[in-house]
């Protein structure tokens, strides 16, 4: 097992280099760079100044040389500084000689996005599992049809529209929930318990919106997995030997039906760090989606590369984790690995 893990982790290094090389070149295929944004199309900003800026950012060098410089910095775990945000560090905080700490951009955005996505994933699992099981048990009866309709409705409703409607209903018509942002004004004067309560209130709508769109996939997956398993021979055997129906469903069928979900959750780990641009813009949440979107629009290459690289690392770790969990959960796989 240990040598298997080591082999998998070592393989990640060339894979990561390949991914970053392709990302770097694709990024540079798009026309323009930081000096050609719409805001800089201004007669007060002369062409010579733009050429000077390009030189200062090494943008005048061939792409392969720029990639070499980037890898050289990355080898020292330095993700560089943003072009567009007054050279804020892309990944982690830095301290200057006067002791001023500048927080990294990903360092700030990632925890917020992770929190929302983990909460919404938990909510999805909490709702989708029972919904899927009920659908399977009541296949083609009204609970099944109702649930399928409900989850597809959630999937089909445009998230931004539902978000705005809910913001209007819970925030403007009634003052039940805050409308946007992460904290109320005066948040820092509250006790820590009240601070948590305040933040939770701000998170209700964003988490709900991101959960409702993800409900359909997981609940249908559970439903179909359950249906497959319920028609297996061993379930028939269990029934034939007179096992309690609850034990059949929860002890045998559900556990087997959940196995493929491990893959899905493994693959959803990179999704956890990629926030949604639309939801983050509407709810005014400074998360990863908005960070990446703005970086692409501004052609802020170090930020784009930083997010892509960290995303690639997390995807590979997620795959590894999924494979290891499989081995842990399924004895058949375990024997093959060890």
């Amino acid at each position: 097992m240990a040598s298997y893990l080591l082999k998998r982790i070592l393989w990640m290094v060339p894979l990561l280099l390949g991914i970053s090389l392709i990302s770097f070149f694709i990024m540079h295929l798009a026309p323009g760079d930081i000096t050609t944004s719409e805001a800089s199309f201004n007669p007060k900003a002369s062409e010579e100044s733009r050429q000077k800026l390009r030189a200062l950012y090494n943008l005048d060098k061939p792409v392969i040389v720029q990639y070499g410089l980037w890898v050289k910095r990355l080898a020292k775990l330095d993700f560089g500084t943003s072009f567009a945000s007054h050279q804020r560090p892309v990944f982690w905080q830095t301290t200057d000689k006067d002791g001023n700490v500048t927080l990294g951009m990903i360092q700030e955005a990632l925890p917020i996005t992770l929190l929302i996505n983990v909460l919404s994933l938990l909510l999805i699992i909490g709702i989708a599992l029972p919904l899927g099981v009920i659908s399977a048990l009541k296949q083609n009866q009204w609970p099944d049809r109702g649930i399928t309709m409900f989850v597809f409705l959630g999937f089909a409703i445009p998230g931004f529209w539902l978000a705005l409607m809910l913001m209007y209903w819970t925030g403007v018509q009634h003052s039940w929930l805050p409308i946007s942002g992460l904290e109320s004004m005066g948040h820092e004067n509250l006790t820590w318990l009240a601070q948590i309560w305040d933040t939770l209130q701000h998170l209700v709508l964003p988490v709900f919106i991101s959960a409702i769109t993800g409900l359909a996939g997981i609940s249908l997956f559970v439903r179909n997995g359950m249906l497959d398993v319920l028609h297996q021979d061993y379930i028939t055997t269990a029934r034939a030997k007179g096992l309690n129906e609850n034990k059949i469903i929860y002890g045998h069928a559900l556990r087997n039906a959940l196995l493929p979900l491990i893959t899905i959750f493994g693959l959803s780990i990179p999704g956890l760090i990629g926030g949604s641009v639309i939801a983050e813009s509407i709810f005014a949440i400074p998360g990863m989606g908005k960070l990446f979107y703005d970086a692409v629009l501004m052609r802020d290459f170090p930020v784009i590369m930083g997010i892509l690289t960290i995303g690639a690392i997390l995807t590979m770790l997620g795959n590894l984790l999924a494979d290891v969990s499989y081995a842990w959960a399924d004895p058949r796989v375990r024997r093959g690995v060890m």
Partner: protein
Amino acid sequence: MLMPTQITRHIQLWLIVFGICLMSACSNGEDAAKKLNSNYDVPHPTSPGGTMIDAMTGEPSGLIAMIAGESAASAIAGNIFNSLLKYDKNLDLTGELAQSWEISADQRTITFHLKPNLKWADQRPLSSADVLFTWQKVTDDNTRTPYGSDFKLVSKAEAPDAQTFRVTYAVPYAPALDTWAGLHILPKHLLQDQDINNTAFARHPVGSHYYKLSDWKNGQYLKLSRNPYASQGQANIEHLLSRIIPDKAAQFLELSADNIDSMALNPIQYARIFPSRPDLSNNIGLYKELGNSYSYMGFNLKRKPFDDVRVRQAINYAIDKQEIIDGVLLGLGEPVASPYKPGTRWSNPKLKPYPYDPNKARTLLREAGFADTNGDGILEKDGKPFSFEILTNQNKEREMTAVLIQRRLKEVGIEVNIRVLEWASFLGRFIKPKQFDAVVLGWSLSLDPDQYGIWHSSQQAPGQFNFISYSNPQADKLLEAGRIELNPDKRMKIYHAFSTILLEDSPVIYLSAGYGLSAIHKRVKGISSPAPAAGIGHNTYEWFIPKAYYRNEMNDQ
């Protein structure tokens, strides 16, 4: 574990609860009524204090404006830093840090005299050494600013004493005063041994203006508090809080829920939503002012048939500008006849936009040799149909404008195709190599009349701004004369003559200048309405919030 039937029962229960919630949402109107129905129109005496909360769509990248460059940065930094000069409410130059300035007889040297006893927010004295330092930084080749070129024209800058700053230009440079009104003066004592490109000062600025930065939560808000040592006296409002809300619809909800005091509106919110919501109009005042830019359709003058002035004029007559203003801006804009802000001294009041006159357009096109010989409704010349492509970038208002133009030009027999592009490829593949027929874009209505970079025939190289290749020796001569004439009255005559030629030549068609629209809660008093030329923001330091209207959460401050 729950029994399946139990689960079903739970689900049923939740569905019922959900239904009840939905129904109560439909029937419940009392909450809306609880909102203060107070009358904000009673007069109040001016009083200091309070917090004003506004919303902006973007976050500043830093607060050193010469490096940050974007509008969000200038908006916040403009409350923290002073320049030597500023524009007053009629858009005339007046002193800010400078008490007075004089121009030498040869028009090459400008001497600024600073006001006495100026201080930085950290109580250190502000002197001409700081101004000199700022000039050195903006012209330094290692400073990552795109705005250095205007200041590199200064051949000698000196600070003979603590109150005096003198710059000498190699040749007289008339836009100089405008450039000094746009340069925020930075403190030498805090920045002299810092790298200005990545200094923490950009996020912890110390300035000399009305406010200082007291808190900045990335991605959430910036909070400014009054600077007790402000160089221009004390503002009334104690705190300015700018929340970052990227989505306009979400901003509008926050405004309706009384969580923010002001936001910039789009024409639909201003002209459609507000009139239908008397509950909002009771609490919120609407303001409009002429904006700082105009939209235009520009031709590639190197391509046929746009090199023919009759064709350009014909197209100008064929386009109904009022229709564009009504359709795209919902009437919230004005036609312009020169690239200068109407109502300012640079705008020539005698010039009138081309009226909508399709018959005149047809006549001019006939004179230019176009006729519909095959009866398909499209004009031809030398056997080739008159068909061209309008390029624009992804901007809803510009796309709609292009569609209206397409229809009007079809009526006079010109076929127009529209192509919408992402900005970087628009610029890189079409504008720089001049691979286009016509564009719909915008330019700013600059406060200084010098637009040498946009219209002078020498500014046509790739990456320069005369990408339409406009070239008229007479206009060139006036642009050169305007650049070296520092006397405002003589300068005005030069630019009035220049804009007359420009209108006649019609290298671009002025389409419209939109209004800047804002909503401000009526608890904020002291706002000039109607707005003077400089807009309602010219006297924000005089705005105040009467004590009775403070927000609850802010009482403790």
